[in-house]
């Protein structure tokens, strides 16, 4: 579970300053009553714009007529159903790590996946957890995951270790991939602890394609590191690496530095990293050193930068959050926002169609309009003008303890 801990990729300072204003941009109010003038300032209406406007005004109301609508004979599209999986194996593979094999209850083939993919499991308790698939994508009849017990965590790993037995049924979503393997010619896979899980299928794929690959696995002790034998066996099957030495380096005990982890990295190649947040930060820093300073001014970079692949997990943990209240319209429903949840999470519960995207206050998709209340802006997207006009990004922004933020509700 460690690699999926909700930690930002790098140490993150809270950006509370408004974004710089734009000369003319998204907050510009364009005149939508009078058609725009001619492009070259000639004293005439723009013919193309006039034509498009007339066309649009006739086109929209025509929608819904035969041939201009969804065929009423077609049934509505439906969502894909979740998978039902049964536990076919449950065994320890390292200290505090169990491996689970999951299969279709009737033995039917499962949806295909590619290295780096994960599964979202719904446990019998209702907890939902993501786990990287660590088996062989060629095996269409079983999924394999590995789970480290995290005592004092959210309880998902403990439930899997202690309560999930052979024959238990789970629901899961189809595999999704947020860490796709791109098959670059030179690949360094860097795993921390249980972070080995998505990298194991990548190593297998790299070996199958005959790529120049190397894997570094760091852990607190040899006994705590799963799949070492499987890795060694895999590395022994193919052509030995060109530069000598093995394909797999095990670093047990101690916390390796970024430079140690990247000792085998090739500048201009690719690094895939999965492990605890501090490890990823160390790798990022060491990689910048490997690539040299970024191209300054208008000089071309000396060479292609090294690609760094890692899985992004959206929201950063809430720092210094206080409980406050959202109100949907003046006199509308009130929704308490606890200290450890974002206003967006609370809003989404009330309205599943509330849009959002980055969870980090930089894309602006979740923007809402504030009618009353004093917010604490924590985004790095909105300009001072937008903030003054009442814009708020609920994915990160909050309010002082006990404050009530009244939001505009759009009629749907």
């Amino acid at each position, binding site marked *: 579970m460690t690699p999926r801990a909700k930690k930002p990729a790098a140490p993150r300072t809270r950006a509370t300053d408004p974004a710089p204003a734009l000369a003319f*941009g*998204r907050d510009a109010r364009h005149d939508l009553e009078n058609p725009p003038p001619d492009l070259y300032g000639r004293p005439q209406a723009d013919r193309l714009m006039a034509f498009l406007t007339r066309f649009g005004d006739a086109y929209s109301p025509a929608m819904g007529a035969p041939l201009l*609508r969804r*065929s009423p004979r077609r049934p509505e599209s439906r969502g894909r159903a979740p998978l039902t999986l049964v536990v076919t194996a449950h065994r320890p593979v390292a200290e505090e790590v169990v491996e689970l094999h999951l299969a279709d209850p009737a033995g039917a083939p499962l949806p295909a996946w590619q290295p780096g993919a994960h599964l979202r499991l719904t446990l019998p308790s209702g907890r939902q957890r993501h786990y990287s698939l660590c088996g062989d994508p060629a095996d269409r009849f079983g999924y394999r995951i590995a789970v480290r017990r995290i005592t004092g965590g959210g309880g998902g790993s403990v439930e899997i270790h202690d309560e999930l037995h052979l024959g238990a049924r789970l629901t899961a979503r189809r595999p999704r*991939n947020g860490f796709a393997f791109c098959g670059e010619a030179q690949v360094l896979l860097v795993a921390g602890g249980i972070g080995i899980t998505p990298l194991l299928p990548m190593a297998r794929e790299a070996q199958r394609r005959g790529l120049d690959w190397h894997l570094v696995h760091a852990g607190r002790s040899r006994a705590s590191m799963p799949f070492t034998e499987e890795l060694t066996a895999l590395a022994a099957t193919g052509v030995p690496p060109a530069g000598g030495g093995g394909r797999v380096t095990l670093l047990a005990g101690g916390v390796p530095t970024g430079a140690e982890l990247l000792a085998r990295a090739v500048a201009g190649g690719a690094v895939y990293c999965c492990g605890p947040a501090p490890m990823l930060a160390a790798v990022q820093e060491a990689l910048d050193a490997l690539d040299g300073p970024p191209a300054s001014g208008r000089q071309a970079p000396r060479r292609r930068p090294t690609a760094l692949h890692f899985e992004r997990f959206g929201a950063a943990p809430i720092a210094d959050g206080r409980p406050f209240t959202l109100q949907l319209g003046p006199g509308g429903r009130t929704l308490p926002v606890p200290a450890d949840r974002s206003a967006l999470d609370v809003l989404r519960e009330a309205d599943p169609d509330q849009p*959002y995207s980055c969870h980090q206050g930089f894309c602006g998709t979740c923007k809402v309009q504030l009618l009353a209340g004093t917010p604490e802006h924590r985004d790095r997207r909105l300009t001072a003008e937008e903030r003054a006009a009442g814009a708020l990004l609920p994915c990160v922004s909050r309010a002082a303890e006990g404050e009530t933020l009244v939001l505009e509700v759009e009629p749907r």
Partner: protein
Amino acid sequence: MPRTVPEVHTDLVLEPRDVHFDWTGLPLHWIPDEPFATHTINVLHLLLPEGERWFVEVFKEALPLVRDEQLREEVLGFVGQEAIHAEAHQQVLDHLLAQGLDPRPYVRQIAWLFQRVLGPKPRLTARRRRENVIERVAFVAAIEHFTAFLGNWALNSPGLDRAGADPTMLDLLRWHGAEEVEHRSVAFDLLVHLDPGYLRRVRGMLLGGPLLVHLWVRGVRFLLAADPSLDGRVQPSWKAAWHVARRGMLPDPVQSLRSGIRYLKPGYHPTQEGSSAQALSYLAGSPAARAAAGAH
């Protein structure tokens, strides 16, 4: 570009990436001594901020119609990426203005087109409003076919490197192009989810395709006329476009046309164009994406 094995990546998780570009010192003709090629590509900056903001609005309107959880997440990831693209290109527009090339007359028209002509129409019945949303998704899907085509071209355009194009601008084009390749299926999958009818898809392309080409030609003419350093000396022509394309600074016009026609094939799916592996590999090393990842 990194050499990768082309392979369809299925079921990718889409998330916006924050980026940081430094435009100080960007020359007006960022392909040195090639004002025609520079401004032909610059039309992107004229069209995209308003266009991509419109994509975001259309997809937000379509969200309540989506019945599949995975598609819904892909749509939200798409929306976030498009929102970041719009702002990145907006910065270039601001930079053009600071250099004495005033893009506002053209942008004003594009804003009218996307906000007024293609914007939400009040006073429609619920059923018509729904049909209008789907129709606009069909336009987005057709345009996304071109953005994926252009993105794939940007990722495989050594001609721009040979011509000494500005590295930051190349990174903008390739970062954006790579995300277009990465999310190239979303608009099409959304369209098929909302209406799998062939007529709707074809209509999106037959109306959207020629309009896009016309706006592009108009944009090139406008930029060449508005460039204070040219005094109207450079005249646009298809012949000039052909020559520049032959030297690898623009996509081949014939291939572009063929690509538009491929969209009309009944068995078309966006995964047939471009390589996710190449796109993701570029994104993992993009200086702008790495700069933003390190800055926060």
